[in-house]
């Protein structure tokens, strides 16, 4: 809206509906006006296919959240992270893996419920998770984990900071600032900042590898052309 990429919402009623649209009100996905407001312009009524898909996503989400996250994994994760003493290696790993699964099933389950509930009413919400634990590298990870947040951070933080257009060092700087603030977004605690810093650091290493590979590719191309002459 601010960058004139979307139209002002036509009526106060539509605006209020956007702000209070219940399926995503509590915990996301983060929906932008261009993704939802156009859907308010015509009356909505789910057809049988949408209803079935919606109910399926709703049940899948409930299963992930209630059974897997809360029922199966939160117990071991809480036990391990709540202990004061040093732990056996196996127990520490199992606790961390349990939390890893818990946070995914909790959040992806919730998102799936929101998307399903909206679909039952004939609305389409953006996907929020795309099999993140199959990510190859961290750029890939952030396009699969909490997609609506990472694209929000990209559009309202990374790109306004200059993105990758202000030279190499500035790109690295922007990446890190985005991840640090992305960490802080999750809660006011320095542990979240370190979490973001670690992700920023991983992205740095990945980017350095990619730059190196691209450069050697360009160099090989150049050599080949020289030889062909």
């Amino acid at each position, binding site marked *: 809206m601010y960058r004139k990429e979307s139209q002002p919402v036509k009526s106060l009623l539509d605006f209020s509906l956007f702000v209070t649209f219940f399926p995503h009100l509590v915990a996301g996905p983060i929906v932008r006006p261009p993704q939802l407001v156009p859907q308010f312009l015509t009356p909505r009524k789910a057809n049988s296919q949408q209803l079935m898909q919606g109910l399926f996503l709703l049940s899948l989400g409930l299963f992930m959240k209630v059974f897997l996250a809360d029922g199966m994994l939160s117990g071991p994760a809480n036990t391990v992270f709540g202990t004061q003493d040093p*732990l056996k290696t196996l127990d520490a790993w*199992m606790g961390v893996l349990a939390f890893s699964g818990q*946070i995914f099933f909790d959040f992806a389950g919730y998102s799936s419920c929101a998307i399903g509930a909206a679909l039952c009413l004939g609305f389409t919400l953006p996907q929020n998770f795309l099999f993140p634990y199959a990510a190859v590298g961290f750029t890939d990870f952030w396009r699969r984990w909490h997609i609506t947040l990472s694209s929000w951070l990209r559009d309202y933080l990374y790109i306004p900071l200059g993105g990758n257009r202000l030279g190499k060092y500035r790109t690295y700087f922007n990446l890190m600032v985005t991840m640090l603030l992305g960490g802080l977004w999750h809660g006011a605690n320095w542990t979240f900042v370190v979490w973001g810093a670690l992700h920023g650091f991983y992205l740095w290493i990945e980017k350095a590898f990619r730059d190196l590979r691209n450069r050697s590719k360009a160099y090989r191309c150049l050599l080949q052309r020289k030889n062909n002459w």
Partner: protein
Amino acid sequence: MFVATEEQLVKASFGPTLKKPVEGYFPPEKNHSKNLTNFILALATFFLVNVTWVFFRSPDFNSAWKILRSMFINLPKGTAVLSYLDIYKVALITVGLVVSHWLMRNTMVLKVAGKMPGGFWVLSGPS
């Protein structure tokens, strides 16, 4: 009437194969093929992500260090706090989670559901 097909659900998250990124959409990384090298890289990514979750979950740095030390050093005074049942449960779910993500990484939930035996009801209906 507006009908959300699979394609539209994809579009709602990524847009079609976009030339330039559109506000609110994230073009996916080019699909990595499902070979052994990429699977190992995916496992490495998962491993490193797990390290970050320690900081995300720990209430303070003391307990984060304690967990990290326990994970990477065989502490002589380390105590076992989980039952065997818990360990099997977590191991089973984690393996299932990673393997299922890997198998479905280049597709979508509704697509997979529609292909399942008996899954026709999910995607069937007037189109």
